[in-house]
């Protein structure tokens, strides 16, 4: 392996926090990169550290950069500590923990000047940097001394760096132990095995390492109190559980599978019938995504609250059924935990690249309702609210999460219990059918909102039935090829879409009085944008921010656009898909809109957003 270290990697030179300025300790404000081999159990170690720091009150975020592979390829986990509460991704890292021989040279080279390298002492230091502090860890020796069961050695070896870091950074051992215990669900044996390794490493570091670097942690207050630590996919699943999901069909795909994993964990716990222990839900692993959405539509049509969870390639397969659900007006909830495309793309890297595909999914004239959760709390909220919307609007609702939000663990406000009863929408039951003498029409707009009445199969009245079809139909759901029937139906669907504008979650705006520039964004970019706004303000650029929580947009978005000279549309994809949608929906505002789009597999950083906005203005 040849390594050139004279020239620092380009990425590391452009960043504002590149050089750690000034003397004195650096407390609760730096990033640690854990460079490990995937399949080696490092996730447990990293999760334990994140949790311990969180419980010490320190604002932290963890970003897992893992390969599309089961064992043996490089994995990085970056924990950012931010006393200011900035939780977005940040490029430079001050500390690197090197456990992977294949990437060690690069991992060491990229550490910020003034930083720290903590490494497995069997790994080579290709070129020793003058500006970096090195701490070796005798991993093999410590593992040997711990007399671990042979088959667990590799997994528990990663606990060595937990102990060493705890000692070097002053992470409270009580919190480490609590996090280990939480991780293993209180099971004494694995807790003891892992804590034994952590303690041995801690003691070794205490006896053998002389700390010369300025980095350490300190317990904090004011940020984490009352908050929880959870991944977006678990939050989404829990939201669905409290939303009364009773039917789930899915096909495995990264990064959407863990959403269904969480459903399969929580549904039996929370939704088994008290008296009989039987299930008030069904989860079916389908033969493909096409079948998954087909089953969801069949179940939604029959009156169950039905959902699926997928990612880009699965969304493609769902196209024809999505069009059917739109046109036949069947409720369905589709979670799209986005990853990079087109094609297989990078299956384990994040993106917001499905916005356009989802909004216009399927052939013919149609647009769909999209929701954009920004954090786990909102994943929970949209988890239940999506069912209310889908049943109220009798249409598929797409919840656009992404890998960063779905699979990484985030600090979140606790979930709020749904404040309103379930909205099951316009469903005529037996009594209502009797009351109106059996005279009703499935696709007749009685209320002027474009939303018509439906009945559920099994309603015991001869006039309850109707014929659901993806073919042209009149108000009575009868097959029709008449041009006027087709147009009337499409006009009503457009009217329904306008009703949707008034029902979807409102955008959230934060406006500065003297701002001339506005930022529009969606979803998991939020943390980076909050930080980027502070950077812009510090650079003298007052700015306002509107976070869209749904498509279609409503008047609030148009008004926001109208209030500013420039609107920067920030998104994590290459083509500026949200920008294009806004451009087509609000063409008169077109010249104001600027696309700030980037996609390389990583979440956007505040630095990049702020710099790009400055450059574009």
């Amino acid at each position, binding site marked *: 392996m040849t390594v050139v270290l004279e020239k620092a990697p380009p990425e590391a030179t452009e960043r504002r926090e590149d050089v750690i300025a000034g003397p004195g300790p650096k407390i609760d404000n730096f990033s640690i990169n854990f460079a490990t081999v995937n399949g080696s159990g490092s996730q447990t170690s990293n999760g334990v550290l994140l949790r311990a720091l969180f419980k010490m009150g320190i604002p932290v975020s963890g970003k897992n950069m893992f390969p599309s592979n089961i064992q043996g390829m490089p994995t990085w986990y970056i924990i950012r500590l931010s006393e200011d509460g900035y939780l977005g991704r940040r490029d430079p890292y001050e500390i690197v923990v090197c456990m992977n021989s294949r990437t060690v040279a690069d991992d060491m080279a990229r550490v910020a000047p003034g930083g720290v390298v903590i490494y497995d002492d069997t790994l080579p230091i290709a070129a020793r940097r003058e500006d970096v502090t090195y701490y070796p860890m005798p991993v093999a020796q410590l593992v040997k001394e711990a007399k671990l069961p042979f088959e667990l050695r590799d997994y528990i070896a990663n606990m060595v760096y937990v102990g060493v870091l705890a000692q070097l950074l002053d992470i409270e051992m009580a919190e480490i132990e609590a996090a280990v215990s939480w991780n293993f669900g209180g099971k004494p044996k694995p807790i003891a095995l892992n804590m034994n390794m952590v303690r041995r490493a801690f003691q070794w570091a205490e006896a053998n390492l002389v700390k010369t670097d300025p980095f350490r942690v300190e317990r904090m207050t004011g940020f984490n109190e009352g908050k*929880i630590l*959870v991944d977006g996919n678990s939050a989404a699943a*829990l939201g669905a*559980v*409290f*939303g*009364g999901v*009773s*039917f789930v*069909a899915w096909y495995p795909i990264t990064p959407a599978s863990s959403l269904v994993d969480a459903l399969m964990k*929580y549904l039996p716990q*929370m*939704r088994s*019938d008290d008296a*009989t222990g*039987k*299930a*008030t*839900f*069904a989860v*079916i692993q*389908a*033969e*493909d995504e*096409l*079948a*998954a*959405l*087909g*089953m*969801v*539509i*069949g*179940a*939604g*049509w*029959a*009156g*169950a*609250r*039905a959902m699926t969870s997928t990612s880009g390639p699965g969304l493609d397969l769902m196209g*024809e*059924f999505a069009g*059917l659900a739109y046109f*036949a007006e069947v409720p369905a909830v589709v979670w799209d935990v986005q990853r990079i495309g087109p094609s297989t793309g990078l299956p384990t890297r994040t993106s917001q690249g499905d916005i356009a595909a989802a909004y216009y999914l399927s052939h013919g004239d149609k647009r769909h309702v999209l929701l954009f959760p920004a954090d786990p709390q909102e994943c929970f909220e949209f988890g239940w609210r999506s069912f209310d919307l889908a049943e109220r609007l009798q249409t598929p609702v797409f919840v656009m999460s992404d890998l960063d939000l779905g699979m990484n663990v985030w600090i979140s406000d606790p*979930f709020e*219990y749904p404040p309103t009863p*379930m909205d099951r929408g316009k469903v005529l039951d037996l009594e209502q059918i009797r009351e109106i003498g059996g005279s009703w029409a499935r696709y007749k707009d009685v209320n002027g909102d474009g939303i018509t009445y439906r009945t559920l*199969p*099994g309603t*015991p009245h*001869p006039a*309850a*039935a*109707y*014929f*659901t079809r*993806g*073919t042209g139909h009149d108000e009575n759901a*009868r097959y029709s090829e008449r041009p006027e029937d087709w147009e009337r139906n499409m006009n009503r669907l457009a009217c329904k879409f306008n009703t949707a504008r008034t029902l979807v979650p409102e955008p959230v705006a934060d406006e500065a009085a003297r701002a001339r520039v506005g930022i529009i964004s969606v979803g998991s970019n939020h943390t980076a944008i909050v930080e980027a706004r502070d950077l812009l303000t510090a650079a003298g650029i007052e700015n306002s921010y509107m976070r869209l929580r749904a498509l279609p947009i409503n008047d609030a978005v148009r008004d926001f656009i109208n209030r500013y000279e420039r609107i920067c549309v920030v998104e994590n994809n290459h083509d500026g898909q949200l920008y294009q949608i806004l451009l087509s929906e609000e063409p008169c505002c077109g010249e104001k809109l600027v696309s700030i789009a980037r996609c390389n597999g990583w979440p956007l950083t505040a630095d990049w957003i702020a710099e790009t906005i400055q450059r574009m203005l």
Partner: protein
Amino acid sequence: MATTVETARGAKVNALGLDKNAYKAAPSTLCKGCGHDTISQRIMNVAWELGLDQTQVVKMSGIGCSSKSPAYFLGWSHAFNGVHGRMPATATGAAVANRDLTVIGVSGDGDTASIGTGQFKHAVRRNVPMLYIVENNGVYGLTKGQFSATADLGQKLKYAGVNNLPPLDICMEALAANATFVARSFAGDPRQVESLLRAAFSHRGIAVLDIISPCVTFNNHDDSSKSYSWGKEREFPLNELNFIPDYAEITIDAAYKGELQVEMHDGTKIMLKKLDPNYDPTDKLNALRVLEEARQKQQFITGLIYVSEKERPDLHELLQLVDTPLAYLPEEKLRPSREALAELLATL
């Protein structure tokens, strides 16, 4: 299960007090003489006879001529005409969402043997409680006469030319996917179709019924195995069925060796009159052999080809569903309590 009675006025009504006309729906728009229409008629007859409550029936279909036919029978039933080849998926969703529904899936050979073979086999594998009817004519009618995957090897069609690929056998595919009920019939044999339908309605789990249904417009040449003339000449019935409602007394003429009684999973009995004295429809290997031999001889055998002797759980049982249909569960069963959320948050 019900029988029909004659009212004082002479109109025949079934156990629900309904005239046969009550089981009709919109008039058919299929070609005159289409086998599919005769199948619709058989379904109406049997549903009426059995006193089936149409409001508890759903008719599921995909795309094609066959898939249009649910509009032409059981007008009081909800129907879902979805997308091509994907009837099994929507049927699975509906069947699970409401376990009280009787699910009738109507499909064609394009739907089941080509675009939707995967879904068909997976629905069979899951043992979705439904009646799965394939109206099999070996041709794409709605797109005007292309070969389907069940077309005969060497068959000629006016526009499509000569078919040089061997046909898929829907019954064999069903058996390979562990179907629990497999039958084949011919649309031109009303008695057999009706007796198989009766048995299929009583089956728990998936009942696959492959009905050769001649396409009078595009595939009714004498050399097609899906034509009326072929079917009439070369149909080899395996057995004859008698359906006995579960409350009826069962009498077996012990002297008659050609009969085999099969108990359906809902307790009703069917009596098979064996035309082939060696045929045992509970012997799966034999069923496959008989199908393959018939295929090689370009015959088609009809009757109950296979019914499982041992019960396999249907999808409702596999999912351990509550008795109340999921679609009818009230909010208090669907949404856990505030306390449950608080407890859960404490664990995060």
